[in-house]
């Protein structure tokens, strides 16, 4: 088991390096840099001026070198100017401190956001915290209800209960967040319908999340994922319920509730577990949409801002974090699958 996890972590790191490199390349393409130069300098810069601005700010070198500097495995660039030595690490260093030779993601320096005028690391940490709260409530709402729906639908395949719960799950999977969110806002918050049960924005939830300002965003994200997990659980449960060992249990005289709880549940939950973990990347999507829709300034909102405003360093930081979140959940899903499944765990 130990070597298995180790190997998975290795693959994960390799994936992370590949992914961050791809993101780095895509964000540091010349048109992006040109735009950056023009927004930072002035819009009527000549091509030569753009080139020299980029050189002066360390965007000049070859892609691999720049990536190495950003990652922190190559020494940061330095350059003599009239005001003395300028360089990546000099800009990164705190006032008065000696600049380090390496200053990249590994050393904890994530760059500087051109839009927020703040260190990327700080922005990411703050926004991630806000999104963490959102995700926590989403998982609290989504996972238990999805599993419950799935198990109840799957334990008697073809029954009325199954039919109605399945229809509900299909409906929720067919409703992306930007549709359900719009409908919820229209129905529950607008003055036209007049219910006004909830707030249409979640901006105030950043300081003080309450049921009124936070429930709609949470519900919107949860619903889309819920149907999917419920359908997986139902399929898995229905399959387990037709398994031969369930018949064995029934013919042993085990009562129906005990069959479901003691014999079927554990086997039926192995497959959905993986699904739930792999659902996290989709949740990230939902987070971006919902945070935009409800104006909740979390991680997803930051992503949109960074991408929309060509804030290269911030976008890089956000990408790295989201890629890591995804990879981490994949790792948990793999390990958890093995753990849950005695057939693989003990061999």
């Amino acid at each position, binding site marked *: 088991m130990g070597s298995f996890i180790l190997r998975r972590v290795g693959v994960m790191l390799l994936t992370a390096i590949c992914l961050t490199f791809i993101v780095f390349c895509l964000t540091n393409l*010349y048109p992006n840099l040109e735009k950056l130069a023009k927004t930072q300098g002035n819009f009527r810069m000549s091509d030569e001026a753009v080139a020299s601005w980029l050189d002066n700010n360390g965007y000049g070198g070859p892609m691999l070198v720049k990536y190495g500097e950003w990652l922190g495995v190559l020494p940061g660039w330095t350059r003599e100017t009239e005001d003395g030595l300028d360089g990546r690490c000099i800009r990164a260093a705190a006032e008065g401190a000696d600049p380090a030779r390496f200053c990249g993601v590994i050393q904890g320096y994530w760059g500087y956001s051109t839009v927020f005028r703040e260190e990327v690391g700080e922005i990411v940490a703050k926004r991630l915290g806000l999104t963490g709260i959102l995700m926590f409530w989403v998982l609290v709402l989504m996972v238990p209800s999805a599993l419950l729906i799935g198990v109840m639908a799957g334990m008697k395949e073809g029954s009325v209960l199954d039919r109605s719960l399945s229809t509900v799950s299909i409906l929720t999977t067919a409703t992306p967040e930007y549709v359900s969110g719009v409908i919820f806002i229209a129905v529950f918050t607008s003055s036209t319908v007049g219910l006004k049960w909830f707030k249409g924005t979640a901006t105030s939830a950043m300081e003080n999340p309450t049921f009124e300002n936070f429930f709609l965003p949470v519900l919107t994200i949860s619903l889309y994922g819920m149907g999917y997990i419920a359908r997986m659980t139902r399929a898995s449960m229905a399959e387990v319920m037709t398994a031969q060992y369930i018949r064995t249990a029934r013919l042993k005289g085990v009562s129906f509730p005990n069959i479901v709880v003691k014999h079927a549940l554990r086997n039926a939950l192995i497959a959905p577990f993986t699904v739930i973990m792999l659902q996290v*990347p989709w949740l990230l999507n939902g987070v971006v949409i919902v945070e935009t829709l409800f104006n909740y300034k979390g991680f997803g909102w930051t992503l949109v801002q960074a991408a929309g405003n060509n804030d290269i360093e911030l976008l890089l930081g956000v990408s790295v974090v989201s890629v890591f979140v995804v990879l981490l959940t994949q790792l948990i899903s793999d390990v958890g699958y093995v753990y849950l499944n005695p057939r693989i765990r003990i061999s």
Partner: protein
Amino acid sequence: MDPLSTSQIALRILAQFLPVWIALVALFVVSIRYKRRLGLYGKLFDSTIGMIGFGLVMFWVFTGVFGAMDLIVTHDPLAQLSGMKNKKPGTPLPSPEEGEYAWYLLGGDNLARDVFSRMVKGAWIVVQIAPLATLFAFMVGITLGLPAGYYGGRLDTVLSFLANLILAFPVILLFYLLVTPEIVATGVPQYMAVVLFVFPLVFFGVLIHSRYRAQPQRNRTMLAVVLVPLFLAYMSLINTPGSKIDFWPLDVFDVPGGILVVFVSVVFVNAPTVFRIVRGLAMDIKTRDYVAAAQTRGEGPWYIMLWEILPNARGPLIVDFCLRIGYTTILLGTLGFFGLGLPPESPDWGSTINEGRKLLSIYLHPALPPAFALLSLVLGLNLLADGLREESLRD
């Protein structure tokens, strides 16, 4: 003129959709009549869920097609009529011209355009792009997934790693990285198109060659008949005057850069998932005796993959195809919602929802029609997939 009442609006909308109703009824009557002779498609009409799903999907397909023929729409979806800004559903035009439809059936949007007509036109965009993009994703996924599953080993490891690499990107991040004007300027999407769109050529080439390799004469004819037109289409598709790829003289049609990049990125996002499904199916089916029988009579690996394995994996693939069109529709909506790729005045559903939501607390009517349209199409595709799954399992 007076504003229309709710029931009048409903009746008039139903009337506008008349061509769609006729087409739907004709399709269902013919299909149910001959359902026993139509294989899996016919069996669909034994399942209520499948029929509802199919009905919803075909409703939007016909709406898209007839809308494109200017049959259903009441106004130009881009025309801004003064005085119609944010007007309620059923509002009459202030000064209708001769032959002009006198009402905005579902009201006017923030720029005084007809919401109803925009919704109908939006269907055409989805109906064009979503199935085609899904089809390309399937070509890519199948062409790579079959050998990965069939051979296994190192090839599988490499391909699976690449697929996982793409899957580890949150989709929106990928869109933000790929679908920007800056990226289009570098030509990256075009290069990706060069790679992605070559897969259908490879697919059909190998498909035919493996089948007819024992008869060289027929093999050549078939390859020429299929591959030459495909190649011409391919070259026209990737060759765009004034872009990085501009050398092909026989450029028949051009795809606008925005549409191309949307198309490419949607294919790119979907292909790895299809790859995984096909790979799993191939791994399962390759253990069957009929595959061993083909091996023992000396069939080539591609014949086995494409003619022995693929046809027997069609059930799950067809089901996934329907689900994936739905998912692609959602992705297109997401792109529109973030204003990526398609031009801002485009009537696609995602963009209209995005525009409508900004004034949602005051005006509901611009955002809700495209929202429900998208919802019902995706729901239809999901129900259709469910019905197909149920019917293909039953035999």
